[in-house]
């Protein structure tokens, strides 16, 4: 009885006991976890070459981490492994990243490019269902956020794509319709080619510079 009083008293003054979650945890599958698995976070210095033959240093690395997805409609907690692939060229202060992240509805590709004038280009694509979830460019004007929504993001499978590295087969190209939008800077990524083994193998900027990433 005394213990009960103490418990009630402690609860009343806000010092709660350790929270016990009544929901179990389900693990979400991740079919894209092996993308770029030959990379690690410390050994990712490669080159990229543009259509004029100019070769530049680029750093490509990936990180793996767990992510929790709260279940809102049923009493389950979800957990899955998320991989993050980063492409960065320090001499240009240019970079972007792709997350392959599990969700209750399937795996999501989240593309993010932060651009040095404060802009942020981002799209979310539900990989298994081939469905676009989000696509926008955000910037600021007089301290207020401004959003621009490109009309279309198309995804196609290319049977054979030969880059400066080698031929690739059955790769996916994500093409974002940003070309006609003046607010979006030229250095924004307009298309992205992803191979299931290597990850990002080619990208094209809005100004139509094509860069091949060479993993050698």
């Amino acid at each position: 009885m005394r213990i009960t009083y103490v418990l009630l008293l402690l609860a009343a003054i806000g010092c709660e006991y350790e929270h016990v979650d009544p929901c179990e945890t389900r693990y979400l599958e991740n079919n894209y976890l092996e993308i770029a698995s030959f990379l690690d976070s410390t050994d990712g210095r490669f080159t990229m070459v543009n259509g004029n033959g100019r070769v530049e240093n680029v750093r490509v690395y990936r990180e793996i981490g767990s992510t929790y997805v709260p279940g809102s409609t049923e009493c389950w907690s979800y957990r899955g492994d998320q991989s993050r692939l980063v492409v960065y060229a320090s001499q240009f202060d240019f970079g972007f990243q792709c997350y392959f992240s599990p969700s209750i509805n399937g795996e999501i590709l989240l593309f993010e490019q932060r651009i040095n004038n404060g802009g942020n280009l981002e799209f979310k694509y539900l990989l298994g269902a081939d469905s676009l979830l989000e696509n926008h460019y955000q910037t600021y004007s007089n301290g207020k956020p401004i959003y621009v929504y490109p009309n279309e993001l198309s995804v196609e499978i290319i049977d054979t794509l030969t880059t400066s590295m080698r031929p690739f087969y059955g790769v996916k190209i994500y093409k974002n319709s940003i070309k006609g939008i003046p607010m979006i800077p030229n250095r924004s990524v307009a298309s992205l080619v992803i191979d299931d083994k290597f990850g990002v193998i080619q990208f094209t900027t809005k100004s139509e510079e094509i860069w091949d990433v060479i993993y050698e």
Partner: protein
Amino acid sequence: MNNLLLTMLAFCGMFHGCESGHEIYIEPECNTLIINTFTHNNSMLTNRHFSLKNDTFELQSSYGEIYNYSSVSQSSESVLEECTETFAHESFSYKTHTDDLAPKISAGLWFRFSDTIAEPVLSLIVGSFLSYTSVNGMSAINDNSAYPTNNKVSFHSSLSVMDTTYNEVYLIEKNDYLEKEIRGIVYSVKQGILGFYRSEEIYWKVL
């Protein structure tokens, strides 16, 4: 009686165990006495980087690509230490912005202090090339503890580089450059950065 004791203990715990304590630091009042103010030589302030004017320019690569830049030039004055007899000194910063996928460019003019001796320093960043130059005598500073470098600076009354002949310029070069890094910067005291190169064939010129 025991219940009363437990209640008292719980309330004591509430006030002592659950509290996160913060000590309040009160800044002592002080007066800063400026005994000298260091300013930069006017000859350095005529070029585009330190003229305090916003600017736009184009950069052309040896591949024929043309990139557009805009820039902001700012100055500030700061003191070496607060609450003591000290020195004020002015700094200039020059930052560029490009929407294109082109090398980043920035510059700075500031002072480094050794005891009471103030040495004006020019810093240039182009791509991954970082350089510090002593404005007195225009020689390379390579002993910056946070960012050590290995550069050299030479003056040329006439310099043929990047398919162009430049007059009255300084060449700031890396001694230990790596492949695909910027190796040299052509700098004019009057005009600022005129161009930079990686090799004889690969370069970028300010138009």
